[in-house]
Each structure stands twice: as structure tokens, then as C-alpha cells.
């Protein structure tokens, strides 16, 4: 049996907001759960995130946004992924995102959004269920 490829995830902070507590906790929890995790650090633009995701050959991107700019930033990332032919990289996220904004973002292609109070277990379980290594899928 071929060795199963480890799932690679990019956890990122996008925009100007410096509240990285959640992103760091999630990055660490996912790493402890056995995923390969790349953390971007702060103040990333959509271009920077997409570039890193492609270079690092990740299976999914998880973005944390608390600044209220989610309706602008998530779609920008999706569009750039599509432009670079990398729309098989899944996008999920979390942060302070009002309930009524979630359906619109999901329609645009954000796979899942976690709001305040989500536990790290919940997120780990979701990743296990929903993210597969990209090449196995093809």
C-alpha cells in the first residue's frame, strides 16, 4: 500500500488586523493533531497567501479574519486561486463573521467558516472529514 500523504495546511492572517491568538492556537492544534501546518504570520495580502499556498503545495488554506473585511478578503483569495489554476486548494476560515454573511461566502466557494466559540477539536474533526491530499483526488 502506498504511504498516505500527510495533509498540508496553510493557516494565515490576512489584512491589517493583528489579532493572531486564534490563528496561532488553530495552527498549533492542527500541527499537534498530525497535519503539516505552515503559518504565514501577520499582515498578508491575498496575493501573498495564494503565492505561498501554491509554492508550498498545500491542500487547504485556513484564514482567520477579525477585522470585518471578510466579505472583501475571502472572495479575493478565491479569485486568485482560480486565476492561478489552483482552485482545488480548499479554502476555509474563521473569525468574527456575522451569521448572515456566511451563506454568501459559502456560495462563493469558502468551504466552511468557524465562528467564536468553535473548539479546536471541532476544527480538527472537520479538516479530517473534508480535506484530502490533492493528488490522490485526481
Amino acid at each position, binding site marked *: 500500500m502506498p504511504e498516505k500523504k500527510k495533509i498540508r495546511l496553510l493557516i494565515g492572517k490576512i*489584512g*491589517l*488586523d*493583528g*489579532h*493572531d*491568538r486564534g490563528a*496561532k*492556537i488553530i*495552527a*498549533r*492544534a492542527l*500541527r499537534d493533531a498530525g497535519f503539516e*501546518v505552515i*503559518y*504565514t*504570520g*501577520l*499582515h498578508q*495580502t491575498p496575493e501573498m497567501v495564494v503565492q505561498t499556498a501554491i509554492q508550498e503545495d498545500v491542500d487547504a488554506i485556513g484564514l482567520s479574519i477579525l*477585522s*470585518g*473585511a471578510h*466579505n*472583501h*478578503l475571502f472572495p479575493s483569495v478565491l479569485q486568485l486561486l482560480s486565476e492561478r489554476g489552483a482552485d482545488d486548494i480548499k479554502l476555509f476560515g474563521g473569525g*468574527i463573521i*456575522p*451569521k*448572515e454573511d456566511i451563506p454568501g461566502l459559502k456560495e462563493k466557494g469558502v468551504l466552511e467558516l468557524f*465562528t*467564536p*466559540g468553535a*473548539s*479546536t*477539536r471541532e476544527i480538527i474533526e472537520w479538516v479530517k472529514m473534508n480535506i484530502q491530499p490533492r493528488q490522490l483526488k485526481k
Partner: protein
Amino acid sequence: MEVSRSKNRAKSKKEWLEQTLKPHLNENKERSISFTTVSSMPIERLYTLEDLANFDYYEKLGFPGEYPYTRGIHPTMYRGRLWTMRQFSGFGTAKDTNNRYHYLLDHGQTGLSVAFDLPTLMGIDSDHPLAQGEVGKEGVAIDTLADMEVLFDGIPLDKISTSMTINAPASVLFAMYIAVGEKQGVQSYKLEGTIQNDILKEYIAQKEWIYPPRPSIRIITDIMAYCMKKVPKWNTISISGYHIREAGSTAVQELAFTLADGIEYVKAGIEAGLDIDGFAPRLSFFFNSHNDFFEEIAKMRAARRIWSRVMRERFKVKDPRSWMLRFHTQTAGCSLTAQQPHNNIVRVTIQALAAVLGGTQSLHTNSMDETLALPTEKAVRIALRTQQIIAEESGVANSIDPLGGSYFVEALTDKIEEEAMGYINRIDEMGGMVNAIEAGFPQKEIADAAYRYQQQLDRKEKTVVGVNKYIMEEEKPIEILKIGEETEIEQKKRLQNVKNMRNAGKVKECLDRLMEAAHGGENLMPRILDAVRAYASIGEICDTMKKVFGEYREASVI
């Protein structure tokens, strides 16, 4: 410690443990094997006189208004004057926020506190590519003096004190405030208020920086020097633990890192050749008040005691005004839950009460909806009313430090002091806070604490009502404040208008003079003030200094 006993004597703690407690515990288990504070500090079952061995009232507490100020910095505390009720507020354009200020002042708020949006906090203009989607969202957008004039329209700056939460570009916003005063005919020596201006905590926790630490500290000492001469009633730095705590630190870490930052600013002021008694009384502090009631009260009491000792014993400061730790408090935003948001009113009440019992000089109570968005008018009014009820109905403001002498509170105050001093000594050994930050030390300690707490929540070792216990499946959403996209469009248009109307040659001249000053050792404040008066934008001014000072890049720690 031997407890003196009368004939009808009480038992010693040990006797009670053996004779009363043990048989009881055999039959009745406690709720948990161990009890800890929200920060994981161990808490004993019972505190008695025996826990305060070698406790010297005069050395540890003294009297209000006297060294070491454990019981408060004023001789009469809230019997004389209540704390300032200062709700942090700002959103959308300067006009939107000006309306909210008038609303809050009409409802009895006694000071203003400006929340700036993220582009302003990062020193970039509203039309910068990185600002897109963020203009006016988390605070008010300010690009030029023209915005600042609108922000304070109809608010007399000689009658109101203003706190501005601004750090990396603090010098620019402060200059704008001075310039608005000039336009209103208020001379700078009459201005009262605070700029947060605490760049060290930005590298540690809040992460809205521009320049690397060393030039940033030079800007701060320039502000201190300028204020000593021109704006003597201004608090030049609000040394902030708030964001350190929000980033996930423990109460002890919040206290220790904040005071260590304070020590670093004092050292910087001395190195810049300033008279310590000229700037030290204008340093103020800013703490978070979290859910664990007694831990917070003890933290604030320990803070005053440590600071006065550091100032008197370490820096050999003579003037008692320099020994006093004055502080603003904000209830803990990170403790609020999106689930069952009305519960947040209760959390805020407990936290606000702790701040008052801890002796705060000024207080912001968070609104119940702040974990979802910026607060609505209704939510912010309830938050303000919470303070008013504590102040005027509860009776807690009628006696000074009413918990002083409590076995538990004094033991906890001592314990927090001891642990905080442990951190402060470690940071001293590293050569001070700038070195510690460059080594990633406080960042790592905080990330570890944040992760530990999240695990405790996930394992249900710590309870958050409505989140990991007493959950309701379906909740009706509450009304929240929305900032529309029109704010950004309007703000960009305003900026363009200002740029079209101003004297471009004058702006360039001012920015060139600022660059010269940045290269040399001249105080930057007069140059920044000139640029502001010429309607140079925040982005133009900060970029000018960036060319000389460079930009900060963080090595990310997870």
C-alpha cells in the same frame, strides 16, 4: 505563624484540617480535585491569618494616597471623585463618530476615547491597497487634519479629556489633536488626555507596528520631551497590558510584561536625557479586567505596589507623583461570547466591579455585542449604565479598598507580586524588554498560555457558560451594527478633496524637513506638527519616517 488565641480559641488551620475537614471530605467530595483561577493560578481551599506570615501592614499596604499605594493612589479615592467613565468608541467616518460622541456625552459619559480603524493604526491612508475592505470597520478612519476637525466638531478640547488608542503613528494623531485645539483657540498647555503610544506591547501582542523597536522608542522619547515643554497635562504613554491579556496571557504575564515595558520606557527617557520627575508622572497604565474576580483585584493592587517600589528603589525617584501607578481598565473583550450575548452584560458587570475594587482611575465597559461587531447605541448605553449602577447604587465606591486585609486577597496579591517579579527579573537578565521581544520571549510565553487555556476549554476543565456548558442549539441573532462599503468610498473621496485643496509645495517642504529631523537627532514633534497643519496625510508622514527608520518584520512564533 503562631496565632494568638483567647480562651474560647479557634483552632489552628492544621487542627481544623485534621479534625473537621478530613472527616467531612471522606463523606463529601469537592467539586474538583484542584481549583485554579482563570489563569491557572492554584487557589487554596481556605485562607486564614496563617497564610499571611510576616505580613506587615505598613510595608505591604500602608494608607491610600501613600507609598506603596496598594490601597489606592488618592487619599479619598472614589469618595472624592468617581472614576472616569470612558467608553472606547469610533467607527465609519469622522462624522459618524462625532455623532456617537455627542450621544455618549449627552448620556453622562465623562471622557472621550477614540478607536481608530486598522489603516489608521498602521499609519496608512484610506486609499492604500492594503486598506481596502478595512476603512472605518474597526474604528474611525482618519487620514488628515480635516478628518480630525470633523471628529471633534462641537466638542471643546479645553473642557473634555480625550484618550486616543493609537500607537505606531501616535505622534501624528497627537499632532492632529494639538492642531484641532489651535483651530478652536485652545492652547496646548490646556489639553488633557492620553495617547496610548505603547509600541512595545504592539510587538508583544497587538501587532499594529510600523518601524522597528529602537526608532519607535526614539519617537516616544521625543513625544515625552515635547509634552514636558508644551503639553504638560498630557499622559504620554498608556502602558498597556490590555492587549497582552487579549492575546491570551495569564494575569501574571499581563502584569509582568506591562510593568517591564514601563521600566523600559523609564530607562529610555533617562537615556534621552530627560528629567525623570518631568516625565514619569505622565506615564499611565492600562489593564484588562477578566472574569476571575479576585485574581483581577489582586493583580491591580500588586501593580501599584510593584511600580512604586521599582520607581523609588530601583530608579531612586524622589517625587511621590512618579511613584503612583494610575491606570485605565477595560473589561475583557476576549471573555465575551457570541453565544447568548446577553450573558455578556453579566460578565462585564463582574469585571467592572473587579476594576473598581482594584482601584482604577478610568473604566471602559464592553458592550454585549462586541464579539460580533462594533456596538450598537443600545448596547453601549447598557454598558455605560453598568458603570453608573456600580458607582451610584451598589455602595462599593463609598469605602476605600474595601477588600484590603482579606486573607485571601492579600495572599493572592502577594503571590501575584512574587510571580510577576520573577518574570521582571528574567527580562532584566535578558537586558530589558527590547531584547526580550527580539528574542520572542514574551510572545512565546503568551502563545503557550493561550494554547493551554483553549485546551482547558476544549476539555471542559474551564467553563464558559453558553459555549461549553448550558448550550442552546438555536439562537435568535441580535441586532448588530454594520459599516457599509459607502464609508470607504466616501472616505477616499474626502482624502482626494483634501489633497486637491492643500498647498502641495508646502506639504513637500514639511515632509522634507521631517525627513531631515528623522536622520538627525532633532525632536520630531514640531516637524510632524507642521506637516499635519499643512494637511499632509498620515500615510505621507509615516512613509517619510519609514524611509529613514525602516519597517518591522516579525518572526512568527506559534
